[in-house]
């Protein structure tokens, strides 16, 4: 059993291509400027169809976090306990990420999104700035 890796789609491909080169990307609407929480093909505010990809600072704040002791699948069970954090990025978008091994996070803590390779795929992860 393998982990469910992210299979990109037309509307998310720039995000995952950015991860490969260490660049965190997000979408904003060309019409109303609304930052999309997660990538879309249509603006979730004005329904505009032109969404522009931008480069994010990678800086964000922990909205919440949990340490998983009982994983949903066998592959993840080998990794317990692991931490999942919900991060509000400074630009206004969101990420759910794992936290860099050995790092503790708390609510409202500032984190920096970095990248790590998991099974051949570049994945964003939360790191605590030095």
């Amino acid at each position, binding site marked *: 059993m393998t*982990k*469910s*890796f*992210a*299979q*990109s*789609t037309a509307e*998310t491909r720039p995000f*995952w291509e950015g991860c490969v080169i260490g660049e965190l990307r997000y979408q904003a609407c060309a019409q109303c400027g609304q930052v999309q*929480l*997660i990538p879309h093909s249509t603006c979730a505010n004005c329904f505009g169809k032109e969404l522009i990809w931008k480069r994010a600072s990678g800086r964000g704040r922990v*909205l*919440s*976090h*949990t*340490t*998983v*002791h*009982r*994983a*949903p*699948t066998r592959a*993840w069970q080998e*990794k317990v306990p*692991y931490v*999942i954090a*919900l991060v509000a990025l400074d630009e206004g978008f*969101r*990420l*759910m*990420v*794992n936290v860099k091994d050995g790092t503790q996070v708390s*609510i409202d803590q500032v984190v920096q999104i970095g990248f790590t390779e998991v099974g051949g*795929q570049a*994945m964003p992860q939360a790191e605590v700035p030095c």
Partner: protein
Amino acid sequence: MTMNAYITGAYDTAVGEVPGSSCMSLHAEAAVGAVADAGLTLTEIDGVLCAYSLVSPHLMLGSVFCEYMGIHPAFCSATQAGGASACVMIMQAAALVASGQCNHVLVVTGDNRLTGLSRDGAVAALVDVGHAQFERPFGMSVPAAYALVAQRYQHEFGVTPEQLAAIAVEQRRHAGRHPKAQKREPITVADVLASKLIATPLRLLDCCLVSDGGAAVVVSSRTAAADTRGRAVEVMGAGQGHTHEHIVAAPSLTDFGCKISSARAFARAGVTTADIDVAMIYDSFTITLLVELESIGFFERGEAGPAAERGELGLGGSLPCNTHGGLLSYAHSGAAGGMFHVVEAMHQLRGTAAARQVEGARLAFVHGDGGILSAHCSLVLGT
């Protein structure tokens, strides 16, 4: 005000581990039971609403059910709104009978999650609720997503693990009075706090059961209700609220669609929280019930936990809640989990809840939520 719709029959099957059961056999037993309870025959049912199945998933579960039963209704459809499905389908059934499109709509749910999937299998199958690219690749489970809500809620409103545990203890106390409940042996706050960690801060006894079981109701028009046998219960109000599907895209981690769904249902029924005699509120996790009690307005922010510790959610408390034991202790078999709440509300309003009876219960509030506090539907039922 009125919805011009009545629940005229209700039934739930044995729950827990039901050897030899299947998704459709549970649907069939529940359907026959509810129709018989209404004093009708299946041929008088002219509308059918089904939900979904994890054990026997199908694109057209409504059609599968009608074929299985050999019935040919004038309206048939299947709904997928997770734990909100039962309430959503009753709201839909009410619209079908009120508009004159149907006389009697059968709303039927069931799945054999425990024997068909096992607890591990059910947890794995439910991961599909998560976003394929932005949640599941990070090991999210449904308990982990609710744990994110619990952690934030604790941070903002000072909810303690003991308060969450008190909710689990009260649900178990309720289940102890129901002869059919899956888990009846009493538990203590210490038991909850000593149970296995699932995803911090949630422990095993903060999480709902995995069960086999089915449940159904018949919703009839005002005119058609006169032809039924049992005591009809009026659907006085209904409302929905939708804010997100994925927790990564939720506008808030402390405010959810139950606020607007319940406000709509109360307004339609012309009542307020203070008028409610008994509440059946979705309790997939202890935090689910706590958040909904506060969001809906039964308690102020930060007050539901202390209220649970004082026994306010118990029989004889200010708001007897989930008197069958809920998803935490009665049973949870998918869409039927939410329907068990409706069946218990029927028992309370018909005065057939035996040892669990809330004295003089006239007005019940029922609430279901699907996903990660994503899709909400509230009902006000009364006699």
